[in-house]
């Protein structure tokens, strides 16, 4: 693995009991790219994402962040993780939810609040900072979760099917939102999805995994596909069809 990649995994193996979930996975994530991990259920894509986040230890293989082996990485906070569910804490206001991740840092309370407000501004919810999570729609909650992940100003954002529970229209909005923000700050995004359309619309590269045991089937390069990508556009639809056919 070259040190040029911002996140690299080499020979990753993960077993749960007798089952081998991931078998000898090699992945190199390039700086500033949007990378999709797709594959059938049970191919271990979420497990792989958890290993990339450093929260789950692999049984074998090496993980490196900016060329530094995982064991020596000091600042894991440069990697943010966005879950499938929004996981907003119901007892906190929207602003305090966004500031949640910052509370593990050294920032003062005033700085945290300011940062949270900035992030809410970024996702277009600056007017709802004092609202309670239960007062928000699903799309708004998802935006708050995104703002919370972005508040720590991560270099790498890992997302586990983050928009899968939203209705199609809101999901499209969130895609645009994410790409706009990513274009603005140039962060690296790695996300897991089972939705090929989502993968094609968002990603620069798609890594397709095969199941039992989980392994890399192929890597599809989408750099040449023009942006913005509309699902209904013929080239995008064609690419989605190709990916689906391969699965």
């Amino acid at each position, binding site marked *: 693995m070259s040190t040029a990649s911002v996140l690299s995994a080499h020979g990753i193996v993960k077993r749960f009991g007798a089952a081998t979930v991931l078998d000898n996975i090699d992945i190199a994530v390039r700086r500033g790219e949007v990378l999709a991990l797709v594959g059938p259920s049970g191919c271990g894509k979420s497990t792989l994402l958890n290993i990339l*986040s450093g*929260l789950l230890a692999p049984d074998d293989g090496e993980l490196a962040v900016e060329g530094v082996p995982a064991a020596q990485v000091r600042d*894991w*906070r440069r990697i*943010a*993780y966005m*879950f499938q*569910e929004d*996981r907003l*804490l*119901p*007892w*906190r*206001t929207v602003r305090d939810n966004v500031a*949640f*991740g910052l*509370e*593990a840092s050294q920032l003062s309370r005033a700085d945290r609040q300011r940062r949270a407000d900035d992030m809410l501004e970024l996702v277009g919810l600056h007017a709802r900072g004092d609202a*309670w*999570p*239960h007062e928000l729609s699903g799309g708004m909650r998802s935006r708050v979760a995104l703002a919370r992940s972005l508040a*720590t100003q991560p270099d790498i954002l890992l997302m586990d099917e983050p928009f899968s529970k939203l209705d199609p229209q809101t999901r499209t909005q969130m895609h645009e939102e994410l790409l706009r923000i990513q274009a603005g700050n140039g962060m690296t995004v790695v996300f897991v999805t089972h939705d090929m359309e989502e993968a094609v619309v968002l990603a620069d590269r798609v890594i397709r995994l095969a199941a039992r045991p989980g392994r890399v089937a192929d890597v599809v390069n989408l750099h040449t596909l023009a942006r913005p990508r509309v699902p209904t556009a013929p080239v995008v639809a064609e690419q989605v069809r190709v990916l689906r056919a391969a699965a």
Partner: protein
Amino acid sequence: MTTSASRQFVSLLLQRVLLGGIVVALWWWGATRVPSFVLPGPEKVGKALLTLWQSDTFVADVSATCRRVLAGFVLATIVGTGLGLVLGASRVLARFFEPVLTVFNTVSSAIWAIFAIIWFGISDATTIFVVFMTAMPLILTNVWEGTKTVDAHYVDLARSFRMSRVHVLRKIYVPTIMPHFFAGARLAFGFGWRVSLVAETIGSSSGIGYRLRQAADLVQTDQVFAWTVLLVGLMLLLEGGLLKPSERWLFRWKPSARQPSTSSVSSSVSSSVSASVSVQA
């Protein structure tokens, strides 16, 4: 406040006044038909209340009882919360100690009171001990139950931000347990308050419970009633002035501000004896 809300408030207020009026009327009517040592009338009790208020020992008695209840309650809160968290954190310890909790919850407060007399004699410790033994298991059980409701999703979220165990405890566990703790503490305070009077009747030489027994021994029924009215007033004040508002503020984030049943604290002194038998929560 909107007009419909204020109209609702006025309507509620009228209902309360009506209820109070009916109770007093029934009381007054009943008092005219039986001897006053059985049921003294409202005006007689009012007079007794006034004498009580002006007596030398009044402030000392009320504050003595309050002090004992508070001491027992605070101790119960500290120990109950601590043990509840420990049992919640360790499945092994929880399984081992579960029978002890059942025993605590089954033993009547009256029995604790008798033990307290044997161990501590006539002293503050007797009442404090009884309040503690009644309130502690209730708080423990509720905090323990609360730890079971902590959402693993939220813990993972905190871990994804690389938060320490202390952070997870403070930012995820404590807010999750809070409603359970509050429900338990409220129940515990109500029970503690009632059993304190039982303890004071047998193990004290001051306090409201002691005065109650004194009045009963001398067949000063009007005084017994006066104390009762006073206690009910005190409880209502505590409920409306402290518990309700703090609960509303603490749990303002809840979707529908559904409040738990309010009957736990504001019950009359006359139920204290029966309460001590039915402490099982």
